[in-house]
């Protein structure tokens, strides 16, 4: 699969101009998007402008910064000034932000080439990307299957050869799950490493922006390019760059395995994980068995907190200042009610109702407060884990990509987040790396969770695996641009 280094080589060796390359991605996107539905909006003008700036720079002989001239996809919940940002919702179908997200601001400053805005579950709520007002994204490895959620369009575009890398957001697994389903690397950074300014909020204390890439080194490059302490986001702290630190050497590294994360897995996933563990042992890592009894509380904790924050964050969509407005109403209250009922899809409405309920007088202590207490216990549990090991290894998702349109109850759907959302609750960095295929040839991912701001450890551990397997599990889908 195409990596950032591949494009860089073509550009610096002058085998192709940035404009030519960009045009190829735009053409491929125009051609293949009707199949994959990876993009909600194609941004040809912004892409070609950036490409021309890169070509000018190349002609002048100047050095390119790491992401300069590389075509990418930006999730459509990250604000782009002057370019509509829909959150895959009818509510924001025609919403054009008047300011840039911090992440897009820094990428734009580096002449990153944005091909388009990536499809997603509405307001990032979902595990399959099917909750999009614009229809779900398809999995390039098998278009009968979903791309995963919520950053499904981003993963679909990257795996489908319609972008070299992507930027997603992860509240309970929304980067790692689609990366796992589409055979890609997905990094959810430590909470606070990347600014959330301009990221349209879902669960503010859980949301984090991160990369979806075709290899571990690219994930490190993109992470370095987007993490910074932003004075406009009080919770952002920035992070040390990691690209220079990756060696792929895991000799003496302590990898923790907690049995609770492996319960009830399908054979194919269990086997792929077993193989990975053996391989790490072979590379000189020490595998440590641990307990993680708090895992059974992770899912309710996550859904209470995420829904509570969502119900608050989404209160602003009342049709008065921007976004969808109903045209049939009696009075102000009726206007707001109808606007919200018509503008939001069913899953978003469900989570707003759940969140409103858990914060209500009389229920607050039973739900929200308890979830806060559990959150603290989960943080403590992780702290204990990292006294015994350097990195925790788990499967990313207990299933492989679901069939498109599979009939699942909301609770069944929520359960697919069980292995990923603990990292969000504790604010820890976690990466998903491809580690195998199921009997249908659908990708399987393994997840590495590290201590706060230890992106260097988890990415290095991931790199060791990727190198040892020669990237065999990052399989080309055969779609999109081939160089």
């Amino acid at each position, binding site marked *: 699969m195409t990596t950032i280094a591949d494009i860089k080589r073509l550009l610096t060796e002058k085998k192709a101009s940035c404009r030519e390359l960009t045009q190829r991605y735009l053409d491929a996107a125009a051609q293949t998007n009707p199949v994959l539905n990876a993009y909600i909006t194609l941004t040809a003008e912004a892409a070609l402008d950036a490409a021309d700036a890169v070509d000018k720079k190349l002609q002048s002989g100047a050095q390119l910064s790491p992401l300069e001239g590389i075509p990418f996809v930006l999730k459509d919940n990250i604000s782009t000034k002057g370019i509509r*940002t829909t959150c895959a919702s009818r509510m*924001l179908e025609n919403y054009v932000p008047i300011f840039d997200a911090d992440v897009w601001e820094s990428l734009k400053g580096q002449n990153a080439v944005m091909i388009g805005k990536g499809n997603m579950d509405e307001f990032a709520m979902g595990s399959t990307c099917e909750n999009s007002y614009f229809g779900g994204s398809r999995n390039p490895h098998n278009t009968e299957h979903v791309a995963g959620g919520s950053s499904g369009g981003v993963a679909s575009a990257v795996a489908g050869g319609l972008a070299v890398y992507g930027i997603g957001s992860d509240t309970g697994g929304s980067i790692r799950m689609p990366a796992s389903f589409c055979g890609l690397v997905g990094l959810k950074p430590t909470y606070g490493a990347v600014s959330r300014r301009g990221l349209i*909020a879902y669960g503010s204390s859980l949301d984090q922006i991160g990369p979806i890439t075709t290899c571990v080194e690219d994930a490190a490059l993109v992470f370095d390019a987007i993490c910074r302490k932003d*004075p406009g986001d*009080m919770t952002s702290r920035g992070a040390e760059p990691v690209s220079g630190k990756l060696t792929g050497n895991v000799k003496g590294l302590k990898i923790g395995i907690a049995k609770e994360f492996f319960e009830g897995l399908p054979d194919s996933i269990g086997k792929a994980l077993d193989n990975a563990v053996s391989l790490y042992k072979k590379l000189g890592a020490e595998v440590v068995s641990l307990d993680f009894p708090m895992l059974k509380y992770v899912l309710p904790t996550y859904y209470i907190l995420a829904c509570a924050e969502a119900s*608050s964050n989404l*209160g602003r969509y*009342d049709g008065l*200042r921007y976004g969808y407005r109903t045209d049939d109403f009696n009075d*102000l209250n009726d206007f707001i009610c109808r606007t919200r009922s018509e503008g939001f899809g069913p899953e978003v409405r469900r989570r707003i109702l759940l969140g409103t309920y858990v914060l209500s007088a009389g229920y607050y202590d039973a739900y929200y407060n308890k979830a806060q207490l559990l959150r603290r216990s989960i943080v403590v549990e992780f702290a204990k884990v990292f006294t015994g090991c350097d990195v925790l290894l788990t499967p990313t998702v207990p299933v492989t990509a679901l069939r498109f349109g599979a009939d699942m109850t909301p609770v069944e759907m929520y359960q697919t987040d069980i292995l990923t959302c603990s990292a969000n609750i504790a604010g820890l960095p976690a990466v998903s790396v491809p580690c195998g295929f199921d009997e249908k040839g659908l990708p399987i991912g393994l997840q590495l969770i590290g201590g706060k701001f230890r992106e260097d450890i988890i990415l290095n551990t991931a790199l060791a695996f990727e190198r040892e397997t020669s990237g065999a599990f990052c399989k080309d889908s055969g779609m999109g641009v081939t160089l």
Partner: protein
Amino acid sequence: MKTYEMVIGLETHVELSTKTKIFCACTTEFGGAPNTHCCPVCTGQPGSLPVLNQSVVEYAVMAGLALNCKINRRSIMARKHYVYPDLPKAYQISQYEQPLCEGGWVMLDSGKKINITRIHIEEDAAKLVHQGGAVCIDYNRGGVPLIEIVTEPDFRSAAEATEYLEKLQQILRAVGVSDCRMQEGSLRCDVNISLRRQGEAELGVRSEIKNLNSFVSVATAIEYEYERQEEILSAGGIVEQETRHFDADTGTTSSLRDKENADDYRYFPEPDIIPVVIPDSVLERLKSAIPELPDAKRARYVEELGVPEADARMLTKYRKVAEYFEEAAAGVKTPKTAATFIVTQMFALIQTEAERENWSPPVTAAQLNELIKLLESDKISRNVAKRVFGQMLESGKPATAFLTEADLVGFNPASLEPLCRTAIAENPKSVEDYKSGKEKAIKALVGAVMRASQGRANALEAEELLKKLING
């Protein structure tokens, strides 16, 4: 004695006078064309994030210190949810658990302490403007920093409530954290009032009267509400717990919403703002920046400067007037002379609260100081000084512009004794009265000396010399 006692608590919202809003860099300036002082943050655009203005924290801490509060070294912001078009995020960022300040007090002149439960910081809502049948939203005010000062139910009369509010206004103005202009809405008040039988300890059911924006409204609303509740209770009825609206035109209150329809604010900690931590160094700096407060200043004027109590009260009511007074009285022998000039001649000219608060008089403090020094050095008489000061106030010119040769002749101290002897010789009746113990009779003799000197003699010195001459 009345059968029922009123029990009142106040919640006061005060706009802080920081340059910028609480969570963005927009100006807090009052006025301005609608929606010209706003940005993605204070209009709640998707993806915008609040950044807490540290000046707001510091202003609020100073208010807390001046009101004798304990400053919580770690406090947290919270979201308070309600749906209304003036609130663009559908929540107000405020404080709930762990507010910035707790447990202060304000002392009334009677010596009674009004206890302050808490002071917290929050953002103001936008303003709805009704325009020809339409409702428009002006976000200029949205995000202006507020402190909410909540008292215990310690008031027993409308007079106590208004005295507290006046003191609060003077203290916050003295500290310089707010201009507390009720007419511009920078000080607004909610009143909680309940009645109980005299001598009873248990509190009655209260009603809350929202958004009172003048001292008169506060007093009128309390009186009205007392009568309304008294009527219900006397008839054996039960007061409903509810929120009421005050109509300033009729002086009455009416129900806004009852307990059943009370808002459920669904408070929870604001995840976008990290906890507010006040380090030792900051607290120490703010403590040392608290100026002398009005009550202390008044006591000092009376005790150390010999200013009459009533004058001292007027001077300390307005921060700028007090500053003016101190400059005018600097280095003079009788500071109370400066006080008299200000409180009589200047206040007669500068009459409104707003003018006194803004205090930009035509005569500078240095000019007044100069005039007082001329008077004290006997270069001019008191009558001349009064006349000249009036001319200075009219024209803004210094005293020297109006002093004629005749004014400046001054008074030769050597001529005081002959004048006194003449006065004694010509007023034997007064001398007799004085000798027989009528202290006041001396004033008639002083008057004679003053007349003879055309007002230029020093009355105090004349009195002393007269007494000496009479007593031998």
